[in-house]
């Protein structure tokens, strides 16, 4: 038994395991990079790095088989290997400080990346010149929002995440006096005005703009610069029976309304929103090019940030390589559209953003110390040796 434990320990602290894990991670990163051509950057991260196993679907029945260890598995083993080796071989000696510092930095970096993967939220804020917003929108996720707009001063919002919508079926919510029944859901679709001669099949929609529109399902896009535009047919049913079926999609500009029990409701499938305790106004977006070229020289957004309590009210210039850090969030100049009148800011919440900075210093310093000791030893030996 003791031998088995020892063998177990020796395996986990061995350099052989380190080398094997490093080789596995190299292969993983290489294959994932190649696969980006097919899957795009987001899907690759889910498939290769944020997983315990890389799955491969059998052609035909489509049964997923684990074919290679994923990022979490390799990363986890590396972490165990690193920690184990350090605890087991720990020595308080000067000549070990470099190696220990470098590896502690690496451990910190791995943990930091894990935290980032779990905690980081990034959204977009799209602002026209002069527009004010107190929320950001997700770049990939959507939500079905049902708003009680009866009170002109205050909207009561029930937001259903897209994942739930995708499961279809009936949804009941304590704040809603009716049931929401998702009849159909399409992860990516295009909408078109229906041909008035009516040759195409009848729309499942019975209310709102839906009956006049034709829905064309599209394959899911993985391209980094495109986003999926989902669509759904939603039936609203009160105690007395159905109120109608609506077609919803972020492609529809104006929200569709319905009345029930003397209250007015709005129904909209929109980019998932996160509300902030402050508002941002775009004062001016600038986009300079080098004369006689299309090469961008600078993008910048002058914005006004005003907190709800009125404690903060100031103007800030956000430009490339110079983000605004405010309220635990960071605002980056990410893009622009609409003939330079609309700015797109990326809004990131990442509580672990400082970790890589600390890890970088530790690793750099650690390696300098380690290699410095080696180099010093080498020079001492050479000068001690008689000149050849």
């Amino acid at each position, binding site marked *: 038994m003791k031998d088995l434990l020892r063998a177990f320990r020796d395996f986990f602290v061995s350099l052989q395991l380190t*080398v094997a894990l*490093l080789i596995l991670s190299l292969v993983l*990163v290489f294959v994932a990079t190649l696969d980006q051509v097919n899957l795009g950057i987001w899907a690759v991260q889910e498939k290769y790095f944020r997983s315990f196993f890389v799955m491969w679907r059998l052609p035909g029945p489509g049964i997923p088989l684990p074919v290679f260890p994923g990022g979490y598995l390799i990363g986890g083993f590396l972490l165990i290997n690193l920690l184990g080796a350090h605890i087991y071989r720990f020595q308080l000696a000067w000549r070990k400080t470099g190696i220990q510092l470098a590896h502690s930095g690496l451990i910190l970096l791995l943990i930091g990346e894990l935290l980032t993967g779990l905690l980081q939220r990034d959204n977009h804020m799209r602002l026209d010149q002069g527009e004010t917003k107190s929320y950001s929108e997700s770049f990939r996720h959507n939500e079905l929002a049902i708003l009680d707009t009866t009170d002109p001063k205050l909207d009561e919002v029930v937001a259903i995440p897209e994942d739930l919508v995708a499961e279809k079926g009936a949804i009941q919510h304590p704040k809603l006096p009716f049931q929401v029944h998702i009849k159909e859901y399409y992860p990516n679709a295009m909408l078109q005005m229906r041909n008035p001669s009516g040759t195409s099949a009848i729309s499942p929609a019975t209310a709102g703009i839906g009956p006049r529109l034709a829905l064309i399902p599209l394959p899911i896009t993985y391209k980094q610069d495109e986003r999926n535009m989902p669509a759904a047919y939603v039936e609203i049913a009160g105690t007395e029976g159905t109120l109608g079926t609506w077609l919803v999609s972020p492609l529809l500009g104006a929200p569709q309304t319905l009345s029930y029990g003397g209250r007015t409701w709005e129904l909209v499938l929109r980019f998932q929103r996160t509300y902030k305790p402050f508002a941002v106004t775009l004062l001016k977006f600038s986009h300079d090019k080098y004369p006689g070229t299309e*090469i961008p020289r600078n993008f910048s957004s002058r914005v006004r940030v005003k907190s709800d309590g009125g404690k903060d009210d100031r103007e800030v210039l956000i430009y*490339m390589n110079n983000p605004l850090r405010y309220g635990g969030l960071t605002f980056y100049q990410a893009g622009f559209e609409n003939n330079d009148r609309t700015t797109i800011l*990326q809004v990131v919440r990442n509580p672990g953003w400082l970790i*890589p900075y600390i890890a970088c210093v530790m690793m750099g310093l650690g390696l300098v110390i380690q290699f410095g000791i080696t180099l010093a030893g*080498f020079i001492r030996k050479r000068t001690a040796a008689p000149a050849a």
Partner: protein
Amino acid sequence: MKKYFPAALLALFALYVAGTLVPPKNPGALDVQGFGRLPVLVNGRIKPLDTVARTSLLTLQGRQRVTTPDQRSLRPAEWLADVLFQPAKSDTYRIFLIENHEVLDLLNLKPEDGDGGKRFSYLQMRPGLPELDRQAKLAEPTEDQLRTPFQKQVLHVRDRAVLYLQLKHSVQVADSPDFLRELIQFQKALPAGLQALAAKKKGEPASDDAVKAMAEMRDRFGFMDEIGYLRVIPPGRADTDPTHWRTVGAALLDSFDTGGVNPDAVAYAALGYAWRKQDAAQFNQIVALFREQLAKRYVPQLQKSDVESRFNSAEPFYTSMVIYVTTFLLAIFSWLKWPEALGRAAYYLLGLAFVITSAGIATRMWLEGRPPVTNLYSSALFVGWGAVLLCLVLEKVYRNAVGSVAGGLIGFATLLIAHHLSLGGDTLEMMRAVLDSNFWLATHVVVITVGYAATFLSGFLAIIYIVRGLFTKSLDRATADALARMVYGIVCFATLFSLVGTVLGGIWADQSWGRFWGWDPKENGALIIVLWNAIILHARWGGLVRQRGLMALAVFGNIVTAWSWFGVNMLGVGLHSYGFMDAAFYWLSAFVVSQVVIIALTAVPTEKWRSFRAS
């Protein structure tokens, strides 16, 4: 004699270098040099016409040399003057590189019509241009990575034709037999013409001829402004912003508002007149006067453009290539004969070439006001520079010519790569907004490039070990051990720089995009280098590899680095499309295959190696 050989050789090459620094003389009576030094705003930067001529020629035909149909060879600036001032002549020069046979067919051309089977004149291409343009429009909607070789070549050739047309219309309307006369007549007719235009606007009677003549000139100048490539006209006296230079067309369009013709536009037209007449006195005088009026207003810009044109004619990187090859050969021979004298000579020459490349890189940095690495071209220069610097250190310590062989080879190879990368156009580009941060360019980019250099160097040192040990008897035990130590030391160095560089890159990404790591191909490429170096070090520490294994791993580092440097930029190329034909992809594949072969050689058991065989 052996004793003085290294110093004598160094002196000889120093003389050769000094020769390249002497300002070149004019080929004839016309002041072509002065013309080449005139400043112009192109692609966001004020540069000498000489640079425009050279980079245009590289883009059009992949080399700077031009031979006329009557077998005269032209300097780049002379060629540019012909394009600008007498395009009918330059239309006959065979300077369009067309290598794809399908494109040749499209243009109804045969290889035997071309210079060297692949360079053709504008006159030869002209009948096929409408069809070329049609094919290019068909190819354009296809994503770059998915284009077929034919589509790619069609677009290349079309872009070359467009560049040539843009140059032709930069200072005069290309079909004008005498643009100076046209401008003088326009100037004379202008007051009456403007009166007629004003009268017509008010609805009063006006001379139809005058109105028509004005409209015609407005069209001509408007066309020049639209298509013209060179911004040669400085703004008015009060405006000192160096980015406000304009095209001749724009300056001439102003005439309708100011009532006068821009004198600088007339000066260029007069320069053209003198050039066509080959009137040296007049040509040289206009060049001198034009320069004089700029000299007071644009002191720093002119200083830079003068240095740049001298830099162009000195060609320091070409000179260095010659010296690197010599170094390499001398160092190799030093292992066979005269180790002391030849080894020392190689070491001196390596130092000389290093000084010249350093000066070249420093000049580029000063011209651009940037840290050394700003694009792929400058990364090639810097990888070579960093590797040679490490080689000099190795050679200083070990004195066994290994550093000189590796340095000569890497120095030459990286400059050759840089030369091929320079065919895309001007290598001193303006920085896109995302990259516009001197702090990060100076830290992340420099550190990571040094990491590339060191990883390559360890790989080349390993190749020296393998080739010498396996095929020759020259690798004695001491040298073998020394090489192993060198490889180990350089791998340590490479680990440090590639790790710190990669993490710094992550921090830059966090600063500008809000994420430290995004698994983007370039980031992954850098990560793979770090991982590989870490694998080498841990395998050695764990006793998994000995000398031979270490060498095999180090050679594989070459593949890893080459992939990260160039391979990730071609992603999609080899996978998705027929773009396999890309020359760069071929070269990368060939390099990878050669390295795999070398790694396979290490499978030969040590006792079979010629150097280690028990005699």
